[in-house]
C-alpha cells in the first residue's frame, strides 16, 4: 500500500512539473506578437541611442559619452532579441502547419537552433563592451553576423511558403479539371468553358510566379543580398496569391453556371 501511495505521489510530482509547460506553451500567433513587440522595443532603443549621440554632440562630457555606450549596448541587445523572436516564430509557424513536409520542418528547426546559439555568443560580446571604440567594433561585427543569423531560416521559410503555394495551385488545378469534365458532358457549356479557360490562364500565371519565388528564395544566401532576395520571393508569392484568387473566382462562376444547368 505504501508503495502505491509513493508511486502516486511520484506521478503527481511529474504532473505538476509538466503541466506548466503545456499550459504556457507559445502558439505561433503569440510568437509573432512577441516579434512585433521586440521590433517596437528595438526602434525605441534606436531612438534613445540617437538622442544620446545628439546630447554628446551638444555637450561632450564623459557622462554623455557613457550614455552613448549604454544606449548603444541596449540597441544591440534589442536587435538580438528581435532576431531571436523572429526565429522562434518561424519555428512555431512551421511546427504548427500540418501541410509542411517534415524535411522542411527539420531544416527550419536546425537553422533556428544553430542561430539561437550564435545569438547567445553575440550577447556575451555585447556584455563585454566598455567604451565607444568597443561599441563600434562590436556593432560592425554584428552587422556582418546579422544576415547570417537570418539567411538560413529565411530561405527555408521561403521553401515552406512555396510548398504551400504549390499545394494551393494543385487544388485549383484539380477543381478546374473536375469542373471541366462535368461541363464537357453538358450541352450548353460555352460560357462555362470560357470561365474555366480563364481560371486555367490565371492558374498558369500563379504557377509561373510561384516558380519565380522559388528561384528568389534559393538565392537567400551569404554572400549576397539575402533580405532583398527574400523580399523578392515574397512579392512573387503575393502576386501568385492574387492569381489564385482570380482563378478561384472563375471556378466559382463556372460552378454556379453548372449547377444552374448551363447558360
Amino acid at each position, binding site marked *: 500500500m505504501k508503495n502505491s501511495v509513493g508511486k502516486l505521489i511520484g506521478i*503527481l510530482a511529474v504532473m505538476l512539473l509538466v503541466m*506548466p509547460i503545456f499550459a504556457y506553451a507559445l502558439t505561433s500567433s503569440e510568437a509573432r506578437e512577441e516579434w512585433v513587440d521586440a521590433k517596437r522595443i528595438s526602434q525605441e532603443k534606436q531612438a534613445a541611442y540617437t538622442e544620446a549621440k545628439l546630447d554628446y554632440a551638444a555637450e561632450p562630457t564623459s557622462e554623455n559619452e557613457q550614455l552613448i555606450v549604454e544606449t548603444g549596448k541596449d540597441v544591440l541587445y534589442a*536587435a538580438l532579441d528581435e532576431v531571436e523572436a523572429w526565429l522562434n516564430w518561424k519555428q512555431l509557424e512551421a511546427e504548427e502547419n500540418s501541410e509542411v513536409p517534415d524535411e522542411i520542418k527539420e531544416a527550419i528547426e536546425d537553422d533556428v537552433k544553430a542561430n539561437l546559439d550564435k545569438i547567445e555568443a553575440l550577447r556575451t560580446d555585447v556584455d563585454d563592451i566598455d567604451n565607444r571604440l568597443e561599441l563600434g567594433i562590436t556593432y560592425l561585427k554584428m552587422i556582418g553576423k546579422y544576415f547570417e543569423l537570418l539567411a538560413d531560416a*529565411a530561405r527555408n521559410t521561403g521553401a515552406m511558403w512555396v510548398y504551400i503555394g504549390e499545394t494551393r495551385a494543385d487544388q*485549383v488545378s484539380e477543381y478546374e479539371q473536375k469542373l471541366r469534365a462535368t461541363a464537357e458532358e453538358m450541352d450548353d457549356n460555352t*460560357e462555362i468553358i470560357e470561365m474555366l479557360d480563364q481560371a486555367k490562364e490565371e492558374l498558369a500565371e500563379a504557377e509561373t510566379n510561384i516558380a519565380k519565388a522559388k528561384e528568389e528564395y534559393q538565392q537567400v544566401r551569404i554572400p549576397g543580398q539575402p*533580405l532583398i532576395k527574400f523580399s523578392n520571393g515574397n512579392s512573387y508569392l503575393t502576386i501568385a496569391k492574387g492569381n489564385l484568387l482570380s482563378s478561384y*473566382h472563375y471556378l466559382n462562376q463556372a460552378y454556379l453556371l453548372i449547377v*444552374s444547368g448551363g447558360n
Partner: protein
Amino acid sequence: MKKVLLILGMIVLISLLIACAPAKQTITKKTIVTEKEATVINSEPSANDDADLETETGTTSETEQPSTTASSSSSAVSQEELDQLKEEIEKMEFEDLGGLSE
C-alpha cells in the same frame, strides 16, 4: 490512509484547475477570433465576388443564382470545397524582414 488519499485527490483537482485555466482562456480567445473570422467570411459571401466577376465578364446572372446546396450534386466539386479553397488561399501571408534590416 483515507486522509492521505483525500489530500492527494485535492492536489490532483487543484492541479487540473490550474492547468486548465490558461488553456480555457486560449480556447475562448480562439473561439472569439474564429467567430470574428466567420462574420467576415459571412459578410463577404462568394456571391459578391461573383458579382464583381460578372461586371468584368459582362455576365448578368442575378436571376440565374441557383440554390447551390440543392443542386450541387450535379457537379464533382461542391460549393463548400470552393469556399474552403478560397479561405485557404486568403490565409497565405508572406512577411518581409524589413524591420530587422533597418
